[in-house]
């Protein structure tokens, strides 16, 4: 999918040695919602988890068999694979506050 090539770069940039935060974003094709979700996620990670995260994008239209593994029903779904326990956030991640709560991330205060 086109969305994937776009997203690969994100992964490459952010993957260093052992990232502290491993996130997986499940989407179904390049819909407005999934693009929005990815944008929101990138913004959030760059702001609060800069250099400490990795994002893996799974397009279920390409790999439908992967949906069962993480018990994905809704899309987009963001899964926090690490640190454990696994957390899931469904929706386009437009509400940054709730995403941070859902991921249990300490927000970085900008002075």
């Amino acid at each position, binding site marked *: 999918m086109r969305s994937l090539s776009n997203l690969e770069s994100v992964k490459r940039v952010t993957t260093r040695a052992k990232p502290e935060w491993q996130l997986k974003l499940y989407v179904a094709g390049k819909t407005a*919602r999934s693009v*929005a979700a990815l944008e929101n996620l990138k913004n959030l990670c760059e702001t609060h988890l800069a250099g400490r995260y990795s994002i893996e994008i799974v397009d279920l239209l390409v790999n439908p068999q992967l949906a069962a593994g993480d018990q994905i029903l809704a*899309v987009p779904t963001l899964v926090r694979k690490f640190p454990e326990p696994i957390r899931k*956030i469904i*929706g386009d*991640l437009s509400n940054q506050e709730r995403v941070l709560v859902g991921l249990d991330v300490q927000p970085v205060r900008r002075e």
Partner: protein
Amino acid sequence: MPAAKKKPSEPALALHKAATGIIGLDEITEGGLPRGRPTLVCGAAGCGKTMLAAEFLIRGALQFGEPGVFMTFEETAKELSENMQSLGFDLAKLQRQKKISLDYVRVERSEIEETGEYDLEGLFIRLGHAIDTIGAKRVVLDTVEALFAGVPNHAVLRAELRRLFRWLKDKGVTALITGERGERTLTRYGLEEYVADCVILLDHRISDQVSTRRLRVVKYRGSAHGTNEYPFLIGSHGLSVLPITSLRLDHQVTKERISTGIAGLDAMLDGRGPYRGSSILVSGAPGTGKSTIAASFADAACKRGERALLFSYEESQSQLLRNMRSVGIDLMRWVREGLLQVHATRPTLHGLEQHLVQMYELVREFRPAVVVVDPISNLSMHADDASVKPTLMRLIDFLKMENTTALLTSLTTETSMPLADSEVGVSSLMDSWLLLSNVAFNGERTRTLQVLKSRGMPHSNRVREFVFGNRGVDLIDVYLSGDRVLTGTARLAQAAQEEAASELLDQDHQRRLRALERRREAVDAQIAALNAQEDERRSDVEFAIASERFVAERSAARNKTILAAGAGLPNLDKTKRSGV
């Protein structure tokens, strides 16, 4: 209901149906569930929704070559496999053969945080993937309502469910969706709003401490269906539903006759016993020998090499075998040879319908030529009277369709009660009705048997006495003396009396014969005497005649001599004269 508007415009072609393979359900729905459409199965917890869904899928895969996807929201795939294993279905094997795909969808509310917009495309993709992988024709969602607990936004969920059912239709799969029963609605979350083609309601009711599962097709768009409530049973071979009204009176009959095992009884029934495939009711008060007649009936079948199935609701198998042995009916050998099966259960174990379903299953499995139920009146102990008759009717009709001869015994509470009332209304369904009664007379009680009716054959109107020997049961002609029927000792006394009387008569005859003989001898003697007299008289007469003739000859001779001496030659003259 979007589907509602589309239906009437469809051609009047018969709706395509996907057979479920579940005994009875296909008969009620006249062929199965609507093919390519979703069907809703709803009911309270524990009434067999998952079982029905799973059997629909498994039978589809095994019997109809239609692979299926089982998407479970409540049980894990492993749990489900184990549960189905207990019914003899090997889900794991079917999974390996790619006939069935199990997908456990876990919805954990605590793990899910919701931010912004989303849809359930993930579920669609999973389901679509599973369907495409094995080429599924059938889908089960059990129970999709679990999503309501896991997905926070119900508005989204409802919209998505609507889309899901539409999507299933577009995919052309026959879907079965289960739903928990709600307070006032069929399902707790009103799924019937989305799935409107076919709705099946399962129910689990308890009356008189006996529970009965029932099934009803609430709605079946575009198809006729049975509307009644049908009892069903989850047995060792899955579900079986009892269709009541689908049974028609069109069974074929034979002219073949079979023996009841009691020669005297066969003789009463036109000398050849009842028809094969007919039903016989044996009713009587306690201790009139119903069980014994039932046992000899089964025994006779086994002797012919046929299989017999005996349902005993009063005695355990070993007790029955022992008791029957005491009257010389050895059922044990038939059990050992596998010709006889005895099923002894307490009537209170199930409801009447459950018993019936169980009988169906056993009859279908064992395929006996003869079925004996002893006694049928016990079955109705815990049921209200209204339900007994249709249930028994179903049983009798079913047995007739299988061409199985049935002998049902029925306990009448009091001999003085009006007969027809005490027969739980089944006597009219029966082809033959034997009545056993005790006749108390002259300080003793004797068992009598009479044939009240027997369709399609001349039968005896006599009351007959029957006795238990140590070689089984037999019937004896009762004594008709004047206008009275005599049994027991009275019969014996009468017999002795008549025997004595006949001896006297015999003697009298002989005496008269002897007298006749003597008179004949006397007559003979008289004849001889008369003959002798006559002989005497004749000899007298003959003597007289002879002596007279002698005298005459002597005088004649003397005259000649005198003539010759007196005249000289007169003799010569005479000769000369005569010579001239």
